[in-house]
């Protein structure tokens, strides 16, 4: 049981990485990776929102939707819960902690339409995870996202001064870098 959970953690952080293997959350990956500081803020905001949304949607699904046989409402419920949580967190940070709002609150509005969040909520249900597996997966996936986003931003700071062909400037060359990172990460496949 324990070794299985560790394997799931490693898989969700490194081997089946949200960005590089599942192609999720590419918009913030391209958009908020110009500076290391903004990548860090975005990464932390994503970790927080995913953990909160994962727990709430899992509870709502098994405590409300399943007993009432309303499973078909999963998608609408999840997206509304995510959107509400983002609003709640932003409001809370505005009121209680200006410093925290400054570093990660500004990225919160970008998270409502981040596919990693909705994906974690949906996969928790569709893979039929029990509570320990759900917890590990819900924490591991955003950690993998934040890790790759931070590494990518460090590479991109150097890329800014590189001499890139005119038509590859901006996003195309960033995608080439992401592809090479995916290849590097696939070398980790032998860990488990």
């Amino acid at each position, binding site marked *: 049981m324990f070794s299985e959970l560790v394997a799931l953690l490693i898989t969700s952080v490194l081997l089946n990485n949200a960005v*590089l*293997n*599942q*192609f*999720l*959350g*590419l*918009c913030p990956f*391209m958009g908020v990776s110009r500076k290391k500081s903004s990548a860090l803020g975005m990464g932390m905001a994503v970790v927080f929102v995913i953990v909160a949304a994962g727990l709430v949607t899992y509870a709502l699904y098994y405590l409300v939707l399943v007993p009432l046989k309303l499973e*078909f*409402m999963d*998608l*609408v419920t999840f*997206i*509304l819960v995510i*959107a509400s949580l983002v609003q709640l967190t932003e409001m809370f940070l505005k009121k209680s902690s200006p410093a925290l709002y400054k570093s990660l609150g500004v990225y919160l509005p970008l998270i*409502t*339409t*981040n*596919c990693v969040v*909705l*994906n974690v909520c*949906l*996969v928790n249900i*569709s893979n039929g995870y029990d509570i320990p597996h759900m917890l590990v997966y819900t924490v591991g996936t955003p950690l993998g996202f934040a890790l790759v986003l931070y590494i990518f931003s460090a590479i991109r700071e150097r890329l800014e001064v590189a001499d890139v*062909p*005119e*038509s*590859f*400037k*901006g*996003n*195309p*060359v960033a*995608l*080439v870098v*992401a*592809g*090479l990172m*995916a*290849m590097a990460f*696939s070398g980790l496949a032998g860990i488990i």
Partner: protein
Amino acid sequence: MNRMQNFKNGLIKDNPVFGLYLGLCSTLAITTSLNNAIGMGVAVIAVLILSNVIISAIRKIVPDDIRIPVYIVIIATLVKIIQMLIQAYAPALNSSLGVFIPLIVVNCIILGRAEAFASKNGIFDSALDGLGMGLGYLLAVLAMSFIRQLLATGALSMTNPFDESQVLFHLQLIPEDFTISMFSAPLGAFMTFAFLAAALSSYKQHIQRKEDEAAKAAKIAAAQAAKAAKEAA
């Protein structure tokens, strides 16, 4: 003719995927086969047209303050309906597209068009805009999956989405010993996308340069004409 121009721009020049970089996640993830690409493209077109029409129809009664929550609820409901239809009539497609069908909800093309176009224009124009943008998305995923399937498996093939045992066509164009399996892996997806986007960007720069030169030439011609008229007078 403005409408036609809008429609055409959505296909090539302002292609939502390669031009605007919207909806990248599903484009990279599902383009391993033509089947997936067509299924996903049709699903996106359906959601986009319906959401544009509904949002345009209610644009005058929705208070401006809460329009984004309203859009999200409408889009989520539409996607769930499409997902249930696919589950019922094309189960093979449903299992190969997996989580990317429900993830259409957070596809920026849909919310982006709702906000940028459907909330300001009439029902007919919005439907046409949805169709144009949706076809642009379909074109992009088809181009990606054409390259990736051909290079990774050496064959182009399609099966009937409603009955997976029925093969529509299967062309083995490259012998199996010469295929590059990298193109079905993430690296191939990122590379294919980067090169297609760079190609579009270089095409746009080419057009821009031509327009600049034409404008310059016209300016010089006008100045010369003015000079000639002055001298004649």
